[in-house]
Structures are given as C-alpha cells and as structure tokens.
C-alpha cells in the first residue's frame, strides 16, 4: 500500500491525507490539487476501457463528483488513489457499449501527435506497427486480465493497489497478471521483431522431467 504520508506526484508537496482533510474543511484549492493530481490517470483508464475520449472526460468528472460527495465519509488514512481508480473502473464499465458493438482498438486511443517516436519515417512506422501488435494482443485478453495489465502498465499501480481496485486478494491479481503476460508472450512470440523467443519444450530448456511420485517398487519374489 502506498504510504499516505509521502507527498504524491503532481507538483503539490502535500500528501493526499492533508488534501482530503483540507477539502473536508471546504478548502477549494485542496480539492483542485487532488483533481489535477489524478485527473490524467483516471482519464487514461477511462479511455483504455471505453475507447472514447468524451466518455473518458465524463468519467473523470463523475469520479471526482463522487469523491466530493464522499469526502465526509472518506477515510483519509486509506490510500485515495485505489479508491478513485475503483470508482473510475466501475463508471467505465457502466459506460461501455453493449457486447454487440465492436469497440475500436486500444491503439486508436493513442494520440498520434503525442507519439514521439524519433528517427526515420521507416523507424516511426515500425514502432507504430509494433505498438499496434502489442495493443492488439492486449485487446485479445479477457476483461479481468486486460484490466490488470492496463492498471499496471498504463496507470502504474502495483499489485497491492490493483488488488484494492479490483477488490480481490493479491494472489488473484498475481495469478491474473501471470496468466495475461504468458498469453501475451505466446501471442507475441510469432513476431520475432519484438525479441520474444518462441516457447520451447520443457526438456529442450535443459530441465529434466521430474521423477514419478509413485515409483514402481520391485517385488521381493520377482
């Protein structure tokens, strides 16, 4: 869990706890500081789930509106960041289109103007192609596994915070992340330009097969 006493990123030296206490007392600047601190992360999370920038904007507003209403009963000693992300995840899944609607790829959410690949045009095109491959593979994951990957690689949450966001034990989060990364590894091994070797048989790696648990015991009479 993120220490609550440590100042968070965002240009303000105050901790989340101090800002929550100040916002409770009606200090508008404290709530604004919390908004600017977590606005972009929640926007990116909503964008990754809904693939719709306008819906992501609304998710940011709704999330902080709920936070403002919940200020009185919010526990400042708990980490605010997982709480906000949890609200944002729930709002994002509520705003997702129905199943029969084909969502655009996660790669479409990337603003090309911000993709600052450097080098020759061929290098830029190659980077964009690799990114399309990886994000397409992430799209192929199931919702639970994709959410864990997005929360870690896009929002930078660690396993403990992810467990608080998705409301499940940390072991489950580990298992989901392990499964997701192995699936991605299998999926991306077909593209050697990513530098991922195809999976090899167990014996080819030099690992010997384990001994049988029940070894045949020779009979004395034989």
């Amino acid at each position: 869990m993120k220490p609550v006493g440590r100042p968070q990123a965002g240009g303000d030296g105050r901790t989340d706890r101090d800002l929550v206490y100040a916002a409770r007392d009606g200090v508008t600047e404290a709530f604004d500081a919390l908004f600017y601190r977590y606005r972009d992360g929640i926007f990116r999370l909503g964008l990754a789930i809904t693939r719709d920038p306008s819906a992501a904007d609304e998710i940011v507003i709704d999330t902080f509106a709920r936070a403002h209403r919940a200020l009185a009963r919010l526990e400042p000693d708990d980490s605010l960041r997982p709480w906000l992300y949890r609200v944002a995840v729930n709002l994002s899944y509520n705003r997702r289109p129905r199943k029969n609607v084909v969502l655009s790829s996660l790669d479409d959410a990337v603003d090309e103007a911000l993709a600052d690949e450097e080098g020759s045009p061929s290098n830029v095109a190659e980077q964009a192609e690799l990114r399309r491959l990886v994000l397409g593979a992430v799209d192929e994951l199931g919702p639970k596994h994709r959410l864990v990957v997005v929360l870690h690689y896009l929002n930078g949450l660690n396993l403990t915070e992810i467990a608080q966001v998705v409301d499940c034990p940390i072991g489950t989060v580990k298992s989901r992340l392990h499964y997701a990364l192995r699936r991605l590894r299998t999926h991306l091994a077909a593209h050697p330009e990513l530098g991922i070797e195809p999976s090899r048989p167990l014996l080819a790696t030099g690992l010997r097969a384990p001994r049988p648990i029940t070894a045949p015991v020779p009979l004395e009479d034989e």
Partner: protein
Amino acid sequence: MKLFARGCGLSQLPYTARAEDLSIRDRFDIEAHAASCPECAAALRDAHSVDAALRSAFGPLRERRAMLAPGRVRLALNSSRVERSTFVRVPRFFGRLAEVSVMVGVTLFVIGGSVEYPQAVVPQHARSVIQEYFLKQPPTDEINYFRWLRLNQPESPKVVSDPVRFPVGGRYDFDLVEPVRAPTASPR
C-alpha cells in the same frame, strides 16, 4: 497413471516481480534462483521482453492528458444540487400527480364508465308531489270552489290551467313513501 511434468514452483515470480515492490535483496534472490533453474531463467528472459514491449506500447497512451478543469466538477455538483432542491421537485411532483390522476380517471372510465345519462327508476305507484299540491289547491272558479269547500275535494284535475308551465315530473318529483289514502267523505 498419467504423470505430468511439474515445472518450477517459482516460475510465476519472474512475471510478477516487476509489478511488486520488491527489495533489491529479493531481486537478487530471484536472479540467483534463475541461474540454477533453466525454466525460471527462460521465464525471466521472456518476462523482460514482454514487459519491455508493453511499456513501449503503452508509452504514448501514458502521454495522453485530459483537458479538464475542476470547475467542471463543481458545475456537475451544482447542477445535481439544483435538481435535488425542493423548489424544483415540488412542481414536478404536482405535475406528476395531475398526470397520474388523469390516467387513473380515464382508466376507471374505460373499465366501468358509460356515456349514457343515468335513468332514475321511478316506482309505478309514486305520485307526483307537485301535482298533488296543485290538486289540493282550491279552485278559482266560484262553482268549483264551493264544491271544493263542501267535499274538500276537487271534482276534476282540470284546475291546473296550464300544466306545462309548472315543473311537473323530473327525477325527484315523487314521494317514495306509499301515500296513505285519507278517508274520503262518502256520500251519505
């Protein structure tokens, strides 16, 4: 009995190690274990490649920023407060009440109503009160008046000069009580 090769029990660790806040010592332990375990060494190498690919792919997405100001949140909070205020809800409540009343009325009319005017059931034996009243009035002509005095009974109901002018009949122009005929004077 079919036997499956069981891999190293720590092979999950290389994949999740980057997401955990591991200490330097823990990371060295993992690498030391991977040096002696080929499966974990391969997992560590693959996890590193997948991790690098994912971080590279999510890099441009991490640069996306929202162009929102906290005023939007305050606007949303104020609009929701106005909606919940009593001054807005009361007219809406009465509007809904009127709608529901009309709906209930129409429904009841359709179920059991009728456009016909309700007909009053007048018993056959009932006599008109107004007509009785006029019949008891003394006649105006002299001969019939004396006869009426003598017999206390008009000879004929023609005393009503113009019955059309009087509100004879109607829904309430009858007496439900059975009229008890008074003993009339019998001719001696």
